[in-house]
């Protein structure tokens, strides 16, 4: 009798957290083979559903598919109830999950006595990954003599089950040819011919092919309590093959509801009508200043390092702060602990390599990426001769790296991580002064972080993060503009969760950042806003500069309760409070952000949600400079309201509908107001903003190779300027306001390792400010445009369809993939921007991406 455990595909559900560790069977109990089934020589599988709690105990087991004999089900249930698992982890902490489990009963003759010699032994490994296959059945058979004219029968001589290392041994088989059959539920069956020789032991290694090379066959069933009314989660394998994303998990964000489309795809995150800088991005709890190289080519973290991300477009919990827009929580994965693995990815922009190795009970994973756009351009463009050339030379270059070590320590799991990114670009023109390019940009950041999480018994969990950071920016545009800044930071995040019962839990946390900064900035004298000379020093104005250094502390404490009232068991309330402080500010240094979310399970599979909360955000550092900004600024505020419904649907699908309203005040806005000494304030907290809209998401989780979503957003985002600006008191559209955003994403994988994907987007045009006249600047010989009403015209609507085909080839020791990704397959011309001609009388559209095919290659082992 053989029992084959198999953790099978499960049903995903709304609000699922990120499964960072699948449950592992640590104590297997063999079921008694039903005598009637054995007598009949019956084999078969029983599919079970098991609910496993945070300690790894099986809370509940039920039969989903009873198999070919009625006695199999009870026998499997009885054994499964005694199983013991290493608990699953969601977001790094033990959690209750439901899994599918297939108990396979394989009838075999009684094993021969142990003293018989081993005649065939070896290992079963998975092709491509080289992982050992556990629990596979290896069966030796030989043709049995049969009556003439009858189909030939096979006699099973011997069988064995592979152990944790994938090893097996067959004993006591008489010499002669045999057929070996290897059966594993997750793999394709193989049959091979072997010859047993007298007195010899044959050593073999068999490689079997997985049905699908998709590591995320176990999906969480949403057991983590949902704390935000709107959260969209992604897993890498779901999106690796989406068109237009180069397999970049973070670029997929831009296809979610609530996210406006960036012009040229440059990666600005405009979330529910908020400015890009109002959305914060965290990597394992550490804020990162940039998400994409050069604003959009690719993200600053290798997607193969990532496990998942959670995107919160609004009404996020109190553990996130200093943001009025959204929050993006990106999680890295742990290194695999079995064997050495790695991969190499090459595409038209860059190349990246990743290596992971086991280290003791933990693992190390390292990745590095370097662009070759600069090398390509260097080879393709003519060399600049400083004396004679009259060419523009563009030399963009970027790299990033990540290094992560995980290891059990201090009663929990400790991980140390280093990561960083460096972008540099310069435009060099022949007339540039030596040593001073027409444009130079370098942005780089580095982080060194340590994370620890552990549980204290069943009800208390502690997460700790400490990180050191360096951010550097160096930008100059010849003599007209320049900034050089360096920021050192120390981040501390602590969160402790007390879970008293299923109805009540409390999270308390600290989120503090200490920054030390130094900067030097030079810029043409700033003109009042909405004047013809309010641009930077393009007109040759004299420049002024400012340099400063200092330090500031931004600590915060936060608390969040999750409570299910006894009288209303279908209702769950999540009240939270966050208190922030920012020592830079001269006024309103401390602000309180109370937040409340409510979930009501109307029917099984139907959840209603509502939330309201206050979100404060300190001004950007450059907005508070003495010469060019206003050091007296206060924090900006936003109130988020949302109301929604989530409906589970058949076929691993669900639909979410969310309405939202955002009311913003104290927005930092340009002003013509003066300080008492007659100098300009430049900026003030006098801006107002209003956003309302609705989001609809119909999504199918990755199952049976099919995955995708349809997202539609209606949004209306407006602003009101400072009272001193001529446009006041009229409201005007926000710079990136897009009324209708429709995105359809679909990906299908065949069993033959082909993947076909498409993405279709249709988006309303963004507003722009038209030019309504001109005045000739006789000092420069160029016309100055006279602006009309702010945002009073719109670009044409945007449409783009992308397609992608991937093929994966699985070899014995490695896997090779290639893809062709064609963006804008219909070659639709989208106006991304309007330029005025020399006297502002004619507009010239700058088109976006034309039909753009690209090729990528990937090898992994």
């Amino acid at each position: 009798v053989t029992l084959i455990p198999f953790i099978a595909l499960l049903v995903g559900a709304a609000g699922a957290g990120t499964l960072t560790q699948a449950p592992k069977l640590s104590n297997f109990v063999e079921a008694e083979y039903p005598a009637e089934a054995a007598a009949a020589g019956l084999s078969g599988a029983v599919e079970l559903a098991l609910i496993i709690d945070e300690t790894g105990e099986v809370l509940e087991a039920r039969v989903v598919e009873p198999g070919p004999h009625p006695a199999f089900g009870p026998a499997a249930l009885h054994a499964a109830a005694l199983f013991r698992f290493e608990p699953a982890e969601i977001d790094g902490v033990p959690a209750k999950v439901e899994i599918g489990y297939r108990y396979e009963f394989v009838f075999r003759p009684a094993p021969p006595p142990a003293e018989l010699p081993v005649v065939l032994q070896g290992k079963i490994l998975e092709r491509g990954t080289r992982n050992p296959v556990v629990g596979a059945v290896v069966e030796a058979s030989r043709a049995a003599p049969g009556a003439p004219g009858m189909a030939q029968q096979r006699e099973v001589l011997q069988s064995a089950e592979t152990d944790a290392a994938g090893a097996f041994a067959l004993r006591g088989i008489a010499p002669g040819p045999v057929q070996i059959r290897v059966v594993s539920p997750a793999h394709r069956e193989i049959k091979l011919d072997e010859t047993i020789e007298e007195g010899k032991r044959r050593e073999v290694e068999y490689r079997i092919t997985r049905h699908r090379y998709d590591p995320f066959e176990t999906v969480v069933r949403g057991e983590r309590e949902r704390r935000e009314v709107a959260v969209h989660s992604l897993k890498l394998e779901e999106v690796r093959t989406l068109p237009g994303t180069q397999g970049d998990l973070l670029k997929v964000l831009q296809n979610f509801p609530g996210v406006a489309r960036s012009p040229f795809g440059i990666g600005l995150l405009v979330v529910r009508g908020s400015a890009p800088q109002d959305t914060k991005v965290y990597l394992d709890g550490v804020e990162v200043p940039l998400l994409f190289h050069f604003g959009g080519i690719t993200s600053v973290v290798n997607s193969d390092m990532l496990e998942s991300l959670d995107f919160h477009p609004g009404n996020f919990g109190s553990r996130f702060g200093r943001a009025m827009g959204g929050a993006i929580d990106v999680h890295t994965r742990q290194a695999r602990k079995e064997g050495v693995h790695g991969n190499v990815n090459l595409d038209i922009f860059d190349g990246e390599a990743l290596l992971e190795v086991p280290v003791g009970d933990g693992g190390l994973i390292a990745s590095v990426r370097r662009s070759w756009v600069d090398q390509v351009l260097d080879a393709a463009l003519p060399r600049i001769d400083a004396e004679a050339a009259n060419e523009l030379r563009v030399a963009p270059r970027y790299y990033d790296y990540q290094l992560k070590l995980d290891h059990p320590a201090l009663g929990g799991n400790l991980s140390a991580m280093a990561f960083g990114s460096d972008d540099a670009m310069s435009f060099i023109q022949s007339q540039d002064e030596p040593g001073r390019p027409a444009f130079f940009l370098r942005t780089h950041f580095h982080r060194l972080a340590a994370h620890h999480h552990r549980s204290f018994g069943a009800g208390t969990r502690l997460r700790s993060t400490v990180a050191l950071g360096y951010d550097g920016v160096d930008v100059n545009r010849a003599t007209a503009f320049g900034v050089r800044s360096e920021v050192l930071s120390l981040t501390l995040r602590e969160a402790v969760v007390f879970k008293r019962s299923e109805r009540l839990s409390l999270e308390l946390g600290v989120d503090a950042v200490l920054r030390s900064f130094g900067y030097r900035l030079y810029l043409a004298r700033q003109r009042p806003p909405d004047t013809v000379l309010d641009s930077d020093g393009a007109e040759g104005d004299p420049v002024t500069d400012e340099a400063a250094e200092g330090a500031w502390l931004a600590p915060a404490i936060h608390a969040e309760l999750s409570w299910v009232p006894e009288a209303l068991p279908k209702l769950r309330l999540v009240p939270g409070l966050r208190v922030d402080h920012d020592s830079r500010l001269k006024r309103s240094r401390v602000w309180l952000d109370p937040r409340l979310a409510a979930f009501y399970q109307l029917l099984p599979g139907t959840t209603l949600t509502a939330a309201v909360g206050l979100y404060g955000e300190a001004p950007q550092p450059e907005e508070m400079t003495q010469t060019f900004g206003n050091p007296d600024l206060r924090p900006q505020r936003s109130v988020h309201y949302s109301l929604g419904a989530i409906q589970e649907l058949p076929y691993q699908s669900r639909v979410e509908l969310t309405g939202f309203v955002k009311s913003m005040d104290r927005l930092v806005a340009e002003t013509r107001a003066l300080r008492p000494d007659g100098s300009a304030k430049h900026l003030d907290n006098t801006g107002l903003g209003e956003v309302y809209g609705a989001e609809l998401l119909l999504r199918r989780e990755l199952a049976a190779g099919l995955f995708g979503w349809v997202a539609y957003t209606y949004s209306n985002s407006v602003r009101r300027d400072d009272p001193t600006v001529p446009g006041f008191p009229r409201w005007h559209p926000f710079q990136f306001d897009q009324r209708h955003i429709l995105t359809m994403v679909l990906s299908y994988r065949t069993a033959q390792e082909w993947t076909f994907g498409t993405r279709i987007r249709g988006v309303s045009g963004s507003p722009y400010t038209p030019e309504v006249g001109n005045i000739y600047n006789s000092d420069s010989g160029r016309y100055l445009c006279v602006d009309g009403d702010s945002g009073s015209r719109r670009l044409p609507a945007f449409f783009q369809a992308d397609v992608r085909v991937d093929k994966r080839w699985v070899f014995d020791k490695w896997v090779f993939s290639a893809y062709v990704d064609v963006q804008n397959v219909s070659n639709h011309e989208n106006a991304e921007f309007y330029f005025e001609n020399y006297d502002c009388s004619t507009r010239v559209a700058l088109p976006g991406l034309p039909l753009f095919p690209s090729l990528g290659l990937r090898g992994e082992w």
Partner: protein
Amino acid sequence: MVRRLLPPALLALALGCTDPVAPQYLVKDLRILAIQAEVISDGQGASDADAGDRLRLSALVANPEGLPMTVQWIACAPLLGETVSPCLDNAVLRDPARLLAHPEVIPLGTGESVETDVAPELGPAILGITQGASCPRYLELPVIAVASAGERRQMALKRVRLVAYQHLAPSGYVRNQNPRLLELRAGVADPDLCSNGTPVTGPISGRQELCGRMADGADQTFIACNSRNQSVAAVEALSWQWYVTGGTFEDLDDDGPREAGNVFGREVAFLPPEGPFTLWVIARDGRGGTSWQVYNVP
């Protein structure tokens, strides 16, 4: 800040890929091409003015259609502090009639050239910006010329520099002179065309290299403020600009639609049209000094 800087950088990258539009150098109707400010009270031809100086403002106006034309001149208060001047305010400039009627503008007269006095009351303000500064500073006096011919109206802005030059003289301040554009020379490509070329006095036939020849000493050495507000010696970077009513300037850089056909450069390649045309060449010294030459080529 970086997020705000990136889009312009990428746009700049894309600019070179756009198609050119109608060139700026080709003048088909009414245009103001340059404005010169010259202090006439001391006869030195300087462009820097101080309180009490008599100033002549001259506009180089192209009116190829020959329609009856008027030029009205106004000034606004100097750009002192950070107050908004109606001469720079988008909301006012949208309508030239509103600008001319604005209560804060000062009418200076009518004609292609007008004379005015820099109000003595501005003396303390001009001196004030100089005193205490570690390098030479100046005030800007915005002046606008509004040319009208038929239905067409054109505005041009000149920022006249007001400097307490007498106060600064002991510290070595070099008062700015309007550069003197002597003549136009033509010839084949020659590194020293301005010396070796032929002065243009009559018709231009066939493709020619043209050069705007300056008087000796046109590029003055002066004391400037650098970005750290320190005094540094600098040499004026002269620039030239070319306009014609017909013909083609060749070998132009494609710097995007905003710069389409804006012909700068001391030497340019020019293919004249059939028949008569007018050619204007303007020289600027980057410090407010301007001069020009006009050629009516038969």
